[in-house]
């Protein structure tokens, strides 16, 4: 069967060149970078080189990069590490309502430990207004967290403006860039952020490795204690092969980003144009300020899990924010935050392109989609609109997502 993978925001394949770079560090140059003897030096040098490469991707200094086990860990470290370091200064944290679960769940946990969180609303394209930050800042605010780009709808946030506000008030500013690394030019100096999370497997690196940029002078508490690796901020023997792979992936992204992003964007725009020709279809997110590989659609009157399953039968991999497809049976918090009612979140479809996505793959999706949507709409009781049915009906039955 034809296989068309269009869920690159979920994960990417590891670049062959990355795999090659990693290979020697499993069985051959397996030394522990912390060890003193010369054999281990090879490993240490490889880690140093990778740190320089990852730093280079975001215009940071090598000693501002801490390797972690994932982007999620980097987010946990940023949020909880800042909270614990500053808990005597204050207990108030500001975060956007569309953050990734790695941030949101960390915040929820902090709430249980006495911290207070203010969630910032966003407009209907997913953009958090810098003014909203200004209004929410209190004397005891210790951290502001706004993601660099949204993982579901691809909206790029005005990080620079927000980081400036934080800087003025001397509040730590964190941005999760796990979804945008390798897709957008990120310059931490220019952005003015104090903390920034990165993830390798979203940019053709291996899974299980992430990094946190910590600007000089930004204090955070470690979450993992032990042998004192990574400047005591993240103990545990370095995952040398993965770190090397991350470095290589960062190096490739830096060198090749301009060329592959351009092709991606053209193809993505072509996809959007074609898909919007399907009746009662909308684009979620911002028309321009979005990741170059992201398209998020909304097909009225149908449900996304069925849509994903149908596409899967045709060999196409994509994702949805529908409640029915989530393990918690909750609709996507991002799509509800941009003001979509539950029944509309139901019909969402996220398509994310990769570097190697070809036009024929997009055409294959474009050929499949209208028929699939049409078939599901034939099954749906809602044909022309939700309103007339919804209003005049007294709903029976207690079918609720809990």
């Amino acid at each position, binding site marked *: 069967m034809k296989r068309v993978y269009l869920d690159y925001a979920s994960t990417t394949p590891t670049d062959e060149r990355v795999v090659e770079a990693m290979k020697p560090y499993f069985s051959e140059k397996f030394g522990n970078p912390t060890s003193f003897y010369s054999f281990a030096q090879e490993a240490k040098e490889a880690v140093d080189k990778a740190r320089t490469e990852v730093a280079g991707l975001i215009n940071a200094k090598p000693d501002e990069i801490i390797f972690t086990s994932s982007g999620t860990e980097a987010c946990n470290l940023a949020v909880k590490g800042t909270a614990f370091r500053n808990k005597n200064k204050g207990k108030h944290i500001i975060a956007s309502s569309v953050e990734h679960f790695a941030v949101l769940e960390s915040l929820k946990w902090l709430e249980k430990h006495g911290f207070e969180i203010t969630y910032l609303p966003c407009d209907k394209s997913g953009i958090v207004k810098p003014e909203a930050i200004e209004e929410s800042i209190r004397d005891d605010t210790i951290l502001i967290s706004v993601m660099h780009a949204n993982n579901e709808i691809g909206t790029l946030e005005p990080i620079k403006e927000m980081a400036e506000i934080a800087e003025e008030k001397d509040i730590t500013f964190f941005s999760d860039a796990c979804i945008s690394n390798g897709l957008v030019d990120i310059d931490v100096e220019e952005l003015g952020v104090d903390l920034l999370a990165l993830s390798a497997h979203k940019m053709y690196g291996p899974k299980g490795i992430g990094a946190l940029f910590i600007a000089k002078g930004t204090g955070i508490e470690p979450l993992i204690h032990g042998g004192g690796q990574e400047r005591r901020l993240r103990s545990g023997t370095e995952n040398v092969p993965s770190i090397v792979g991350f470095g290589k992936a960062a190096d490739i992204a830096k060198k090749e980003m301009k060329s592959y992003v351009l092709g991606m964007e053209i193809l993505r725009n072509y996809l959007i144009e074609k898909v919007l020709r399907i009746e009662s279809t909308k684009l979620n997110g911002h028309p321009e300020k979005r990741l170059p590989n992201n398209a998020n659609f909304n097909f009225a009157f149908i*449900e996304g899990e*069925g849509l994903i399953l149908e596409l899967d039968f045709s060999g196409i991999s994509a994702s949805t924010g529908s409640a*029915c497809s989530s393990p918690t049976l909750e609709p996507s918090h991002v799509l509800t935050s941009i003001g979509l009612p*539950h029944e509309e979140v139901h019909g969402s479809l996220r398509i994310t392109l990769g570097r190697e996505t070809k036009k024929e793959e997009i055409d294959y999706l474009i050929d499949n989609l209208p028929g699939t949507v049409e078939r599901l709409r034939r099954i*749906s009781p*809602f044909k022309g609109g939700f309103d007339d049915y*919804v209003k005049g009906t007294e709903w*029976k039955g207690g*079918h609720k997502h809990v």
Partner: protein
Amino acid sequence: MYSEILLDHFRNPRNMGRMEDADGVGKVGNPACGDVMYVYIKVGKNEKGKEYIKDISFETFGCAAAIGTSSMVTELAKGKNFEEAENISKSEVADAVGGLPRRKMHCSLLASDGLKAAIEDYRKKQTEKGE
């Protein structure tokens, strides 16, 4: 995740579509919490004068499990008298489709509730007529 039977009912739903001259219509679920099912029935009388489901169809806005179990419930109910039809439980529907993942059990409740609601609607209309 889904059984072959369920996938078959999802892909080739039986008795699907609106019934314009239905004797009873059951509307269950709620678009505001996601999922909705409409069940349409046509009622006949058997030799003993007992009412039974002569024809049935459905429309569903929901996941693959909701669509698949909707289709199955119409198959199970067709030709049954009211008592039998009302006794079709959600687990019976779930079993008939070859089992459901735990978090999808509530989708089969939608199907069995929809059927009951259609019968109820028919009865209500009958009493209204009688009045």
